C-alpha cells in the first residue's frame, strides 16, 4: 500500500458515494468496468514481461558515455532515443536516469531522457493507449509530442548557460 493507491481508493469511495446519492444504475457501470479491465489485463501481463526483459537488455553503461557535458547538444538526440527505448515504469526509468547522472550526464541530457521516456514510454502505448484509444490517436499524439523532449532539453541547455541551478543529485 503506497500513498498513490490510498489516494485512488479514497477517490473511488467518494465517487461511489456521489453515484449512490445521484441514484445511478450500477449495472452499466459494472459492465463498463469489466469490459475495460479485461481489455487491459492480458495485454498488461504480457507487455510487462516483455518490457522487463527489454529494459535488462539496454546497454546503459555504453550509452552514458555519450551524455556528458562535453557532448554538448549532441547528447540530446542520444538521450531522446534512449528514453524512447525504455519500455518500463518509473522504477526502472529513474534508476537508469540515476545511473546516467552518476556517470556524469549533463542536466540537459537528463531532462531530455526523462521527458522522452515520459511522453513515449512504449509499454504505456502498448498496454493502455492502443487498446483504449486506438491507432489514430497514437499517431496524432506521437506526431504532436515529437519535439517536446528536444524543447525541454534545449531549454535546460539554455538555462545551464546562464545559471548553475538544477544539477542532479542522484540517489546513492
Amino acid at each position, binding site marked *: 500500500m503506497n500513498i498513490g493507491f490510498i489516494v485512488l481508493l479514497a477517490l473511488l469511495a467518494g465517487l461511489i458515494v456521489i453515484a449512490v446519492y445521484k441514484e445511478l444504475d450500477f449495472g452499466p457501470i459494472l459492465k463498463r468496468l469489466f469490459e475495460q479491465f479485461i481489455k487491459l489485463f492480458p*495485454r498488461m501481463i504480457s507487455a510487462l514481461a516483455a518490457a522487463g526483459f*527489454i529494459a535488462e537488455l539496454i546497454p546503459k553503461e555504453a550509452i552514458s558515455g555519450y551524455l556528458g557535458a562535453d557532448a554538448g547538444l549532441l547528447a540530446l538526440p542520444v538521450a531522446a532515443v534512449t528514453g524512447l527505448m525504455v519500455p518500463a515504469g518509473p522504477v526502472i526509468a529513474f534508476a537508469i536516469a540515476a545511473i546516467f547522472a552518476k556517470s556524469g550526464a549533463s542536466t540537459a541530457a537528463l531532462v531530455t531522457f526523462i521527458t522522452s521516456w515520459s511522453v513515449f514510454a512504449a509499454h504505456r502505448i502498448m498496454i*493502455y493507449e492502443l487498446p483504449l484509444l486506438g491507432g489514430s490517436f497514437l499517431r496524432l499524439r506521437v506526431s504532436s509530442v515529437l519535439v517536446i523532449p528536444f524543447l525541454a532539453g534545449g531549454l535546460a541547455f539554455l538555462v545551464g548557460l546562464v545559471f548553475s541551478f538544477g544539477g542532479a543529485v542522484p540517489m546513492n
Partner: protein
Amino acid sequence: MRPFDFLRDRDWRNAVLKDGFGVGFWVFVGVAVLAGLACYVLKGPEAFHHALVRDIELVFGLVPRVFVAVSIAAVIWFLLPRERLSGLVGKESGIRGLVVATLAGAVTPGGPASAYSLLTVLATSGADRGAAVAYITAWATLGLQRVLVWDVPFMGAEFAILRIMITIPLPIVAGLIARRLPLTLVVKDENEKQEEVDTNLHK
C-alpha cells in the same frame, strides 16, 4: 434488472474475451518470449531470473491499482456532465482549454491506468484533440505525484524544480501542434461503436 445480469450474456462474454485476448495480446506474448530468450542468452540466467522476478512483482502490485483506476473511470463515465465538459475543453475552448487540460493532467493522481481511462472518457465526451494531447502530455511529464515520488528522491529537488519549470509550457505547445496537424482522429469506443470525433476540423 440486477447489476450483474450482463455477466450471463454469452455473446457479451465472448466479445469481451476476444477483445482481451486478441492479436495485440499474442504479439506481446511473442515479444516477451523473444526478449526473454535474448536476455537469457546475452545476459545470462541470473539477469533473466532477476528480470522475471521483477516482472512478477510488478504485475501483482499493478492488478489492484488498475482495477481501482478503471473503476474510477467507469463511475466518472456515468457521472460526468458531458455538455459542460465540451464547453471547457472542446474545439472552441482556445488556449484556455489547453491550460485547463494541462492543469487537469498535472493533478490526475495514479499511474497510466487512471490517466488513460480518464483520457478515454475525455476524448469521447467532446474534448478536442489538442486538449486530449495536452492532458496526457501534462500527466506524463508534469504529474505532481510522479514528481514527488520519483523525481525528487532519485534526482534531487533542484533538478526536479528545473525540469518542472522548463516543462510547464510544453503540454500546451503539444496541444497547439495537435490542433494544427492534418491527421484524422477516430477515437474508438466500444459503447458507441466507432465515433467520428474530429473530422470536420480539417475539411
